[in-house]
């Protein structure tokens, strides 16, 4: 019990460090993480939406908005864990200085998850306001949205932090973004239903976390709750649990040589 409270107090200290650093740049940070999905929403939703009027029974704009919300969270988490994580490890010694204190690597990683969960929630919420303003939310189920958003903080931070710990250069981080994150974004059912893809593509997509995040967010926004929603939720929980420990070893190797 006492051990547990120490663990979370340490993690909270890491969270606080990240919060103080973020506070200095929060305006530009929100603008950057917000601009891209908003552009997508407007350009595709209104532009392409003029031709593709109905998708799975709802307007195209309505179809893509919840998925873009999930993507906003994913990107907010991935960029911070990837790029900032890389810098914390390689250029400004933030993790190294933590290691001169009694903090341990699992506590540091837990603190990063708390922080990324916060970011996911925050950037998701900002985008949610836009979606709401467009009148694209039709269900009270959306009140449950914070739960998957918090989980995204772990699901997407874990692999990004792992890549940051293993990457030797900034370029190697870009591989992760352009070979993993971007394709996942394009294919995970944000813009079109996955069922119409060739089966082997669909099967790959089906095991990726973003797909379930997009589906669940859409189901919550449109009130299309079914057993499938629970299934999507369990996939996300499972991903969080499975990936959680991934960066710990990689960071330990870097920080305790």
């Amino acid at each position, binding site marked *: 019990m006492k051990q547990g409270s*120490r663990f979370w*107090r*340490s993690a*909270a*200290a890491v969270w*606080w*460090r990240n919060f*103080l*650093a973020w506070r*200095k*740049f929060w305006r530009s940070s929100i603008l950057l993480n917000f601009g891209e999905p908003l552009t997508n929403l407007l350009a595709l939703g209104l532009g392409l939406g003029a031709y593709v009027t109905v998708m799975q029974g709802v307007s195209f704009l309505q179809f893509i908005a919840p998925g873009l919300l999930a993507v906003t969270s994913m990107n907010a988490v991935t960029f911070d864990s990837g790029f900032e994580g890389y810098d914390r490890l390689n250029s*400004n*010694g*933030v993790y*190294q*200085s*933590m*290691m*001169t*204190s*009694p*903090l*341990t690597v699992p506590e540091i990683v837990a603190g990063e998850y708390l922080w990324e969960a916060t970011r996911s929630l925050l950037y998701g919420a900002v985008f949610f306001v836009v979606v709401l303003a467009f009148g694209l939310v039709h269900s009270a189920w959306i009140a449950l949205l914070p739960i998957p958003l918090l989980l995204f903080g772990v699901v997407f931070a874990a692999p990004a932090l792992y890549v940051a710990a293993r990457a030797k250069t900034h370029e190697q981080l870009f591989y992760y973004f352009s070979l993993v994150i971007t394709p996942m974004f394009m294919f995970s059912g944000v813009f079109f239903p996955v069922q119409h893809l060739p089966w082997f593509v669909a099967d790959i997509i089906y095991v990726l976390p973003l797909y379930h995040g997009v589906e669940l967010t859409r189901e919550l926004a449109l009130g299309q709750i079914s057993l499938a929603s629970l299934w999507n939720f369990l996939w996300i929980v499972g991903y969080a649990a499975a990936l959680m420990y991934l960066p710990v070893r990689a960071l330990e190797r870097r920080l*305790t*040589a």
Partner: protein
Amino acid sequence: MRLSLPRGRLSSCGGVSGPRREERFRKEAKQPKRVVKVVNQESAAQLTDNPVIVAKGLRKRYGDLEAVRGIDFEIRKGECFGFLGPNGAGKSSTIRMLSCLSPVSDGQLEVLGMPAGVAERRIKERLGIVSQEDNVDPDLTLMENLLVYARYFRMASGEARQRAGELLRFMQLEHRQDAAVRELSGGMRRRLVIARSLMHAPEILVLDEPTTGLDPQARLLVWGALQALKRQGTTIVLTSHYMEEAERLADRLVVVDHGTVLERGSPRELVLRIVGREAVEIWPEDAADSERIAEAARPAVRLSDRHGDALVLFSDEPGRIGEELVRKQAVPARMMVRPANLEDVFLTLTGRDLRE
């Protein structure tokens, strides 16, 4: 929270004006509840024999490379202990192991009576670590850097804020407390790292090359701070390749090279034992001149060496080399007589090859 450093008694190291010091004492008087544990002069000066760090046959391997090859040392409570050696000698590896930043490959290492590999967290709680890199947080202000670090040690925030203020004054950074770290000079960053390492009032302060890259003013300030801490009873462990630094600060030191200890002792003792009391530097005209002078001085010379184009002759008896040269009418055109120093010891022990 253990406080071995007398909190609130940190006097600024670069000379504090009278009124300011008075003001601080007044402030203390107003807070009678705070327990100020003052380490008295006696206990600080008394170098007890109980060691706070003991290493036996300590080794560090990185794959095929063995950076530390079985070294032994004991560091006593309250002393300043130095690791002196050229680049790549194994100083940093050793100090990283005793800071619990790097696992011990082989041998024994006890810090504050606890085995280094097992009790990492408990050891780190009582250790102040100043790494070679200035790893202060560039995204935070000076004050925030200290407060965040205090949280890592689970210090209460009121206590942390007060302590941070004291330490910023101690390192003469109080006027920049709300500045962003990005704007600081190298010397200021280094002072901030030292202030940060003192937040939790550590019993042992471990510094890896504390003044490398600093200008002379900043270096003096850091030295002053370390001497003040030592007077207050903090054990200090440092690595350096600056002889002047080691001579000034270290009570005892080991000279390490290629991962082994070459010599150990106090700076003065090492100088007398290894090179002698006096050094005479001579710049001969040519090789023949050099030969002639060396021959003339021989009876008085204990050890001779070459530093660049200078011939350096060492003697245990001050003035004897000069006498010999005068007697044999071999006084060189250019010569300089000076006390032998740690640099002579260092160059004698580790050679003059470049280490890169």
